[in-house]
């Protein structure tokens, strides 16, 4: 335990403290340690893992709804696109940029960017539909320099590089694991067809014979999104690893 004790000050120490303060002030006035980034003209170099606006690549998306489920602010809604698939749309009025969606997307369809300094004039412009999330957005930029925090020894140096920072970092997707859904207890199946109608990639098909119904899961088409496993009323489907 460190005992904190502050001695009673006599007038002489008081004057010394006054002088210390004035000397420090004067020293800073002459040789200041300015660390200001002049934003409109300069921009701070952000790490590639910065959590800014989110980009979307539709071909990797398996519309598994996981980004919409995980969003703490319910900012992601899955919208029915023209090709009858559900794609995420981000409502930036509610988005808190926690990137749980980027971390949950099994198909690595959502990518982070370094775009963050954006301002809107009204709120309904902030709901970006899926079509708008594919191409990198164009923002108003007035910066000529990029400032990087560099420390050597005890000095903090703001190194100014005279080029515009590329706001779209290259993104290496995580290594995916092939999973497909299979039935664990076929004799309890109701043949209700809910898994057939909720499978986003139409991997399960139901054929009706005269006295019985045939169900078949196409291992290649199944993307392992897990919706059928979740929706099955009797919970008899489960995801199986390759």
């Amino acid at each position, binding site marked *: 335990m460190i005992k904190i004790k502050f001695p009673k000050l006599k007038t002489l120490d008081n004057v010394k403290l006054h002088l210390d303060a004035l000397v420090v002030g004067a020293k800073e006035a002459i040789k200041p340690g300015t660390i200001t980034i002049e934003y409109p003209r300069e921009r701070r170099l952000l790490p590639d893992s910065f959590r800014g606006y989110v980009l979307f690549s539709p071909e990797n998306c398996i519309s598994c709804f996981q980004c919409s489920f995980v969003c703490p602010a319910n900012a992601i809604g899955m919208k029915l696109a023209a090709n009858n698939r559900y794609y995420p749309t981000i409502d930036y009025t509610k988005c808190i940029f926690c990137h749980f969606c980027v971390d949950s997307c099994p198909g690595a369809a959502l990518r982070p960017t370094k775009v963050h300094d954006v301002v809107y004039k009204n709120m309904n412009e902030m709901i970006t539909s899926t079509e708008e999330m594919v191409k990198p957005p164009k923002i108003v930029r007035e910066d000529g320099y990029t400032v990087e925090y560099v420390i050597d020894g005890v000095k903090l140096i703001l190194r100014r590089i005279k080029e515009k920072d590329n706001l779209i970092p290259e993104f290496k997707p995580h290594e995916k694991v092939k999973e497909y859904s299979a039935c664990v207890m076929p004799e309890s199946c109701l043949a209700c067809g809910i898994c057939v109608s909720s499978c986003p990639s139409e991997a399960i098909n139901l054929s009706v014979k005269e006295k019985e119904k045939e169900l078949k899961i196409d291992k290649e088409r199944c993307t392992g999104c897990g919706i059928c496993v979740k929706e099955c*009323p009797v919970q008899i489907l489960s995801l199986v690893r390759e």
Partner: protein
Amino acid sequence: MAITLEWSVKIPDRAIEEKYWLNLKKKVIDAGLCSHCSTCALICPVDGIISADREIDFPDWEEKCVDCSACVRVCPRYDYTPLCDIGEYIELTAARSKRFKGQDGAMATEFMASALEMGLIDRALFVGRDEEWRTNIYHIRSVDQLKDTRLTGTKYSFASVLPEIKKAMKTSKLGIGVVGTPCMVSGIRKLQSEFSLFREKIKLVCGLFCTENFYHHQLYEFLKEKGVDFSKLIKTDITKGKFIATMTDSVVSFPVKELNDIIPHGCEVCIDFTAVESDFSVGSVGSNVGYSTVVVRGEVAKDVLDFIRENNYADFGKVIPEVIEKLSNLKKKRKKNIPEEFRSRIQEEVKPEESKESKESREKESEKEKTEKPKEQEGTKEG
């Protein structure tokens, strides 16, 4: 656990060329056979079939029903094989629980509590009631939750117990115990025969002696006319042909016959008094006051009974089988309401001639019993 990518499911043939729900509606509900056991509400994948305080219904079935035939496969009354008499059993005793107090011996509660303790099941479904005695279902997971008085005691109105099984199955690991009327028990047995998942999950099924059940709103208005104040009502009972509603300050009683006009159709065609297909059935008929008659049928129920005996959670007593037979024959009189094609399927239980000495010994006991207090019960008793 065979993991397959292709499998087939047998489906029953259609009575009418319409969606299976319409088949069910026409052949069972409109035909007056529906006993409101709500097994179809349990199995419906889109939770469309509603089991509430009115007839079973599927509101917007045109676009919600996926025509999967599950409801038709599980309905016990679809091709109805009526059951009657006591059916074979391992043991027939009367008992009274020491830990709980219920309608009579509170043996259904006792059985479920000891099953929970044995670790046979981890979830028991009980019928509780709110202020207006409307039924709602409680998921009981521990013994001390059963102390709540609103759970025990008979509620003479329909309770949609089976849809709650669907919710309980999601998270119950060991198994589920259910208490229900004979029609519910036959619904569960039909369900288990069709889908193996329910065989594993539903471990213990308790049947109740039941003559008939009522829709809550009909019973509620009927009793209101009789002057029953539901806020002060503490117990309802049918003994000696009389319906007795005891309240904190007064008692209202009237002969059961008057209830005949509000008996639903489903109960008029039912002749199963002692829940023949249950693991064990409980009722107040045939045992003296404060005791419940327990008919142990399944092996599982036998182990639970032995468990109760070891820890002597209950004390046991005499049972008079004739009284039970008398009542089940009384209920068999309803055979005439069953439609033609089903009546042929009833297997009467041929009474084996009794060996002489067992008969006298039984008559002696019955006189002794009669001298104490003549008793003749009717109606659904929940021990």
